[in-house]
C-alpha cells in the first residue's frame, strides 16, 4: 500500500482537515451576535419610531447590509469572514458583501459591463434561490 496505489484516497492523510468544531462555535457566536444586534435595532425602531414589526425588521436588515458594505469597502469583511465562516456568510451581511465585493472588483471594466453587469456574479445564486424559496414558502405558509 502507498500513496501511488490509490492517490485520491491515500492523499487525504496528508490534507489537514478543517477545524469543524471550532468553526461551528465561532460561526454560532459571531452569527448569533450579529442577529442579536439586528434584533436590538428592530426593537429600537419599533419602540422609538413606532415602526410596525415588518418595517422595523426591514430597516434593521438595511442597516446591517449597509454595515457589511462599508466593511467590504474598507477591505475588512473578507478577514472577518475568514474568522467567522458561516457566521459571516449566511446572514444578509454575507449577501451584501457578495454583491458589493463583485461591484468593487469589476469597477475597472466600467459602470455598465463592469459594476452593473458583474454585480450579481457572486450573490446572484443567493438572490435567485432566495426568491424561489420565498415564493414556495408563500404558497404553503400564507
Amino acid at each position, binding site marked *: 500500500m*502507498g*500513496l*501511488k496505489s490509490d*492517490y*485520491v484516497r491515500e*492523499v487525504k492523510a*496528508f*490534507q*489537514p482537515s*478543517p477545524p469543524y468544531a471550532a*468553526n461551528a462555535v465561532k460561526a454560532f457566536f459571531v452569527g448569533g451576535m450579529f442577529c442579536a444586534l439586528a434584533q436590538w435595532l428592530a426593537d429600537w425602531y419599533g419602540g422609538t419610531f413606532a415602526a410596525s414589526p415588518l418595517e422595523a425588521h426591514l430597516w434593521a436588515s438595511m442597516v446591517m447590509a449597509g454595515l457589511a458594505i462599508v466593511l*467590504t*469597502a474598507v*477591505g475588512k*469583511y*473578507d478577514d*472577518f*469572514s*475568514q474568522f*467567522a*465562516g*458561516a457566521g*459571516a*456568510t449566511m446572514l444578509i451581511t*454575507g449577501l451584501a*458583501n*457578495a454583491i*458589493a*465585493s*463583485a461591484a*468593487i*472588483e*469589476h469597477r*475597472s471594466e466600467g459602470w455598465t459591463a463592469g459594476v452593473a453587469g458583474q454585480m450579481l*456574479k*457572486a450573490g446572484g445564486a443567493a438572490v435567485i434561490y432566495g426568491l424561489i424559496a420565498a415564493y414556495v414558502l408563500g404558497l404553503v405558509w400564507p
Partner: protein
Amino acid sequence: MKRVGKQTWVFDDGVYIQAAAAAVGPLEADGPLGSYFDVCHRDLYCGEATWELAERRLMREAVDCCLQKAGVSAEEVDLFLAGDLLNQNATSNYVARELPIPFLCLFGACSTSMQTLAAAAAFVAGGLADRALAATSSHNATAERQFRYPTELGVQKPKTATFTVTGAGAALVGRAPGRWRVRAATIGKVVDAGLKNPLDMGAAMAPAAADTIEQHFRDLGVSPGDYDLIVTGDLSRVGSVIVRELLAESGYDVTDVYNDCGLMIYRPDQKVFAGGSGCACSAVVTYGYLLQELARGTFRRLFVVATGALLSQTMVQQKQSIPAIAHGVVIEAAGQEPDLPP
C-alpha cells in the same frame, strides 16, 4: 545539446544565464527573501490604476532590470519567451507589444518560469537565438479574480489553499559565458491524479512534480545527492510533504536537499494559508534568491522544478479533475560545475 533518456535535454556546450531580475509586491518584499529582489513595491497597485496594469508593470520592470544588468539593449535580444496566468496570457502579450523582440507566448500555469527558461536554453543551444529572454509574472489580485472570487468576497478558505505571489521574474539566456550555467532541463508530462479541489493545488500538483523529478533521475542516472538543492515551485506545506513521500515510495530520499519556493518566500507568521503559489513564486525565488546564492557559492548545482496546476475554472465547475505539469531545469554556478554523471 542532446536529448538524454526520454524527457531530458542536456546543454553540454555552454548555455548561460547572463542576468536575471525579480520584481515583487509588498508582502513578498516583507518576506524573508525581501532583500534579494531588485524592485519592491509597497502597494499592490504598484502605482497603476488596476491590478492587471500592476502585473504588467511588474513584468516590464523585471525585463528592464534584467537587460540593464546584462548591459544588453532589447534590440540585441533575438527571442522573447513569456507567459502568465491571465486569460490569453494578457500580461505577456502586452509587455511584448512594447518590446522590439520576436515573441513566443507560452502557458504552463505556474510551471511557466522553468518552461520559458528551458525553452530559451534550447533555442540558444540549437543556434536559433544568440540571446533569449524568459519572463513570467503573477499577481495575487488578478489571479484571485481569474481563478477564484472577487478579492473582497468573504469566503472562509481552508488550510490547504495557497496564496498567489505578486511579482515577476526575467532571465536572459545566451551563449556568452555568464555567472550561471543552464546544464539540463527535464520537460514534464501532464499528470492528472484525479483531484478536483482548486483550493488544494499542492496535492493536485505533487504527482506531476514527483513524475518529472523521478524521470530526471532516471534519464541522467543521477541521484538526489548530486544536487545541493532540489526545489519545487509552489507545492506549499501540503504538497511538499506529499512529493517527498511519493519520491520515497520510488526509492529516492530527497529529504536533505529538498525545499519548496512557496515555503521559502513568506515567513511562517505571514497569513498565506499553506504557502505561496503562482508563476512568480518559483520565478522570483529562483531569479532573486537562488541565483545570488549560487553566485555566492552557497550552492553549486540546483534542480528547480516549477509546478503548474493546469486549472480551468470552467472545467472545475463541470466537475473535471485538475491536470498538472512540472518542468525542471538544472542550474549551476559557472566555472565550478561539479561533474554531472554520466
